[in-house]
């Protein structure tokens, strides 16, 4: 049985200091219900997705289900760092396939700007192995910077090529009303921004943000009854890599991405060449270039050339992150996966506005969780 996405909703992403996490979730959920033309009684399960410890509410599924009025509906929390809501969609798909539930609402959220900077930094410095890495004060940029350096060493990728990713994504973010950063930037802006963890500079990095995004899924029969243009989930992939860097053998690639996308392509019976549009994990500019290679958009080491040749812009071989990506949208950790999926859904419904990829029929949404211990892939198709 095919599973389709019948409704989507998302809040703006940014420093939303007038909103609590439950209010953001309610906004996104309500919009998705309205988009699907469904009522709350039609939702069989609420899957709540978020990264841990960015705000003080424990066991968030509990408060979210209550706040949107879904008791006694089943609810649960899915956490896989930045891959949380991508994994939530996988879980929802499985429940529908198993015949356990008819319609599942997956809502990803994160509230990252409420705790003060020192508290958030402490949380983020414990993103890796808390016993053997956290005592050395690694930051999220530090982990990705180490991968960036390995890629530069092996393939000669340059900081200018990394900067092109930020320029492209900010350009597309400028026309996305939900994006945190709506100003275009130049390569020089990126290169002049202050070093955060060498070689990554401020404009090579995504920003912490608040936000929520909701995807409502249903089995084929119900999906076709509900909407004229369900977007079908054609392929899924999920894989893990060692969390600690000492456990890994590859640093110019995220091996979990390679495994996850292989599963998704196989299940969807597609290859990278069949994709019309993609949303990939660009928590850092260097990550997007590595993603191009891991996801099969080009050969290993050719990621820098791919962006330099503008092949990942609209009009190029494979438009990537033309909603602004994490770099321009902001990165509310738990909401990002669903947001990527929503952008692909809009592309496949021909509702992407100024950044529409013409005739988009097959799309990929990809996320890496945290410092590279999870990768989740979803292949979607319009027909």
């Amino acid at each position, binding site marked *: 049985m095919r599973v389709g996405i019948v409704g989507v909703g998302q809040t703006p992403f940014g420093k939303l200091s007038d909103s609590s996490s439950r209010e953001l979730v309610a906004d996104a959920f309500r919009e998705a219900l309205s988009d699907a033309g469904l009522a709350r009684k039609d939702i069989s399960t609420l899957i709540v997705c978020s990264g841990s410890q960015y705000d003080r509410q424990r066991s968030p599924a509990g408060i979210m289900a209550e706040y949107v009025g879904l008791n006694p509906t089943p609810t649960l929390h899915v956490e896989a760092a930045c891959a949380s809501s991508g994994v939530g969609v996988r879980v929802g798909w499985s429940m529908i396939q198993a015949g356990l539930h008819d319609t599942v609402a997956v809502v990803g959220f994160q509230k990252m700007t409420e705790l003060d900077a020192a508290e958030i930094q402490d949380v983020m410095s414990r993103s890796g192995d808390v016993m053997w890495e956290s005592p050395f004060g690694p930051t999220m940029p530090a982990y990705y910077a*180490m991968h960036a350096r*390995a890629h530069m060493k092996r393939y000669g990728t340059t900081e200018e090529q990394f900067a092109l990713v930020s320029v492209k994504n900010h350009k597309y973010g400028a026309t996305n009303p939900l994006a945190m950063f709506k100003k275009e930037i130049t390569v020089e802006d990126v290169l002049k921004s202050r070093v955060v963890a060498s070689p990554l500079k401020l404009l090579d990095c995504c920003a912490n943000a608040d936000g929520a995004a909701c995807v409502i899924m249903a089995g084929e029969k119900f999906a076709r009854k509900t909407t004229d243009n369900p977007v079908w989930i054609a392929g899924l992939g999920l894989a893990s890599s060692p969390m*600690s860097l000492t*456990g890994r053998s590859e640093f110019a690639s995220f091996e979990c991405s390679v495994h996850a996308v292989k599963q998704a392509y196989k299940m969807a019976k597609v290859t990278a060449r069949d994709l019309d549009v993609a949303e990939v994990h660009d928590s850092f500019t260097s990550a997007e270039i590595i993603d191009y290679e891991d996801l099969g958009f080009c050969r290993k080491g050719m990621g820098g050339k791919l962006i330099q040749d503008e092949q990942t812009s609209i009009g190029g071989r494979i438009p990537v992150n033309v909603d602004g990506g994490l770099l321009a949208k902001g990165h509310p950790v738990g909401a990002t996966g669903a947001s990527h999926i929503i952008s692909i859904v809009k592309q496949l419904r021909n509702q992407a506005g100024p950044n529409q990829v013409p005739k988009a029929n097959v799309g990929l949404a990809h996320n890496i969780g945290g410092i590279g211990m999870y990768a989740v892939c979803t292949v979607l198709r319009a027909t």
Partner: protein
Amino acid sequence: MGFEKFGFISFSSQTKVAKFVDYLQDGKIYGTKCKECGRLQFPPRAHCNRCLSSKYEWEELSGDCTLITFTKVEASPAAFKEQSPYVIGLAEFVEGPKVFAWMDKSISEGEVTIGMKLKLKSSKLPNGNLSYTLFRTETEHD
């Protein structure tokens, strides 16, 4: 010594492999070697990564390693501000396993290159805690 004594800031204190810290106090770097399948692990583990056995013995490492990648952290977490900026290196021991640690501040930024030979040594921190640090290897002259 307890594991809370490991690292500039320690976030955990309870582990079966706390003896590691005693070895650091003695100026030595130790890994664990599985008695069932022979796998050598660093950092030390109470369960073999290859066969899951908990029958292991402690084995000293030479500390000799090669730099795989690194980064200089300029924007550090609040708790590490006084130490900042610091260079985190990932290196591979000649014996096989890898290590994630600070590079000693005596190594200048210009000197750091992927592939350089380093020596991991136990280090005592100002707050009385123990850690390990990547140093330049001694040259023949020293």
